[in-house]
């Protein structure tokens, strides 16, 4: 119940931001798409595994939109295609990396993403290298929108995708398969003695995380209408982990809270201190880790508990 209320409040807040600050509509869309990718990171963190390469799947979603746009004019279809390609890639890589744990898991993911990044940079005739690919604005649900109408439509699309994904992931985490993720973190061998394949459990989460990152990447491509290899670069993967920890892994709201705060700090700090915004982000994370290990979602939960306890 409290969760539903909090989600409702968050949605209203985002809508208000988007309504009164047109440029925040774009920032919010980007934050939601980042949040989608971070939701996948959170699933892996539940199993105690940190991927330093998930920007690979964001890029897969985004480049799928860019490559298919000449042949496909509908944003929703592009979005689905982005998710499908990222999931397929996730299956190929996942079958391999889910054999490994901890630092090996993290580094193998990093390695795959670096291969993808260098291919995107080097195969100029296909990808236009570091220049990237411009994406012609598609229609949405058959409507040819532009200007503020397009911004609104895309923002709402991102919001619906986030609510849908958040709901599905919350359900998943409350299921035996989701619960087994925490068991991988604490006592993986016991899972095998329960007749459950830890590798299969982790692969399922990995596929979900690739799909979520793919959707996030597709929305990013639709919002920026430009994709570059930087989407797959390791610093972007690191950002996703950063946001996951900032937001907290205890609740599906965490990734989105983290992403909104991250994007807002980035935008404001970058405007005020162009040379030092990363430092400010670093300090924000430091304060969160030292004062609230459960992230922003944990802080919010404590606050709600305290208010609820008093009232």
């Amino acid at each position: 119940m409290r969760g539903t209320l909090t989600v409702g409040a968050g949605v209203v807040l985002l809508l208000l931001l988007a309504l009164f600050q047109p440029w925040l509509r774009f920032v919010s869309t980007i934050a939601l798409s980042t949040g989608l990718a971070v939701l996948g990171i959170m699933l892996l963190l539940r199993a105690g595994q940190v991927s330093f390469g998930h920007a690979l799947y964001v890029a897969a979603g985004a480049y799928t939109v860019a490559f298919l746009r000449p042949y496909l004019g509908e944003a929703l279809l592009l979005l689905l295609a982005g998710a499908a390609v990222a999931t397929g890639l996730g299956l190929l890589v996942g079958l391999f990396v889910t054999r490994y744990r901890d630092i090996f898991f993290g580094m193998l993911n990093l390695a795959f993403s670096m291969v993808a990044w260098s291919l995107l940079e080097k195969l100029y005739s296909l990808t236009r290298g570091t220049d990237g690919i411009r994406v012609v604005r598609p229609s949405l649900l058959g409507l040819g929108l532009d200007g503020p109408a397009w911004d609104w439509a895309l923002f709402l699309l991102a919001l619906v995708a986030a609510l849908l994904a958040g709901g599905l992931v919350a359900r998943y985490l409350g299921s035996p398969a989701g619960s087994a993720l925490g068991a991988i973190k604490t006592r993986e061998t016991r899972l095998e003695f329960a007749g459950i394949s830890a590798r299969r459990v982790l692969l399922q989460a990995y596929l979900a995380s690739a799909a979520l990152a793919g959707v996030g990447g597709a929305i990013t491509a639709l919002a920026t209408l430009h994709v570059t290899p930087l989407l797959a670069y390791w610093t972007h993967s690191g950002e996703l982990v950063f946001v996951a920890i900032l937001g907290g892994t205890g609740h599906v709201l965490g990734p989105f809270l983290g992403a909104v705060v991250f994007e807002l700090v980035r935008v404001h700090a970058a405007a005020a201190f162009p040379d030092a915004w990363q430092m400010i982000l670093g300090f924000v994370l430091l304060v969160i880790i030292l004062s609230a290990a459960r992230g922003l979602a944990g802080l919010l939960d404590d606050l709600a508990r305290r208010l609820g306890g008093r009232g």
Partner: protein
Amino acid sequence: MSAPLLAARGLSLAFGGVRAADGVDLEVAEGEILAIIGPNGAGKTTFINMVTGYLRPQAGSIRFTGREIAGLPPRRIVRLGIARSFQIPQLFTEHTVLENVALHLAARSGFWAAFGPLLSAERRAEAMALLAGLDLAAVAHARSDQLDEGARKLVDIAMALALRPRLLLMDEPTSGVAAAEKHAIMDRLVAALRREGVTAVFVEHDMEVVARHADRVAVWSQGRILAEGPPAAVLADPVVRREVIGVEGAPC
């Protein structure tokens, strides 16, 4: 006599120079409760590890319901109906006791059921009933890392029971349990096993517990079975008394 549920023949396994199993022959009949006794390092845990697929014997065979299982991975063996508990409890420490048991109950259900709610009303009731049977209802909602050693041991057994095995292997179920509670706990446990018709093998250091609850005893010493038979006869055997029970006084 009908074919045994479990039949081990000539099981051998050495770690370097240590012969943890040195030609073990053992049969367990359906419905029987068998105690394994023997000094520390005799190879009792190694036997359980081989039967449950954690260790592969270097020689010998293990048949369960007539089927060869030696060398199969734990996951496959569990699905055939053999569950175990551990000498050192192996719990999912971020989960509550209820969730630990529920996850084991859910382990038997199919692929799609793995994505339904873990704590469905039905499964919650089944888990609570199982916990109540072991007198654990009061700690159902505690995180499993907040329990004392005795309770952790029992939760570990509850998890194995939740798999609804035909054969349950328990590695020292009462070690770490306060002496005063031992008998009460074993009474409940054995009653539950007999009620459900579960065949059980348990490693035990307390001879009173063995005498009271086991149908048969097998005595381990240096990777071999030194003696086996009804508790009264085996526990009275002078060789067993000297070799095994004599050194049982020291806590291990």
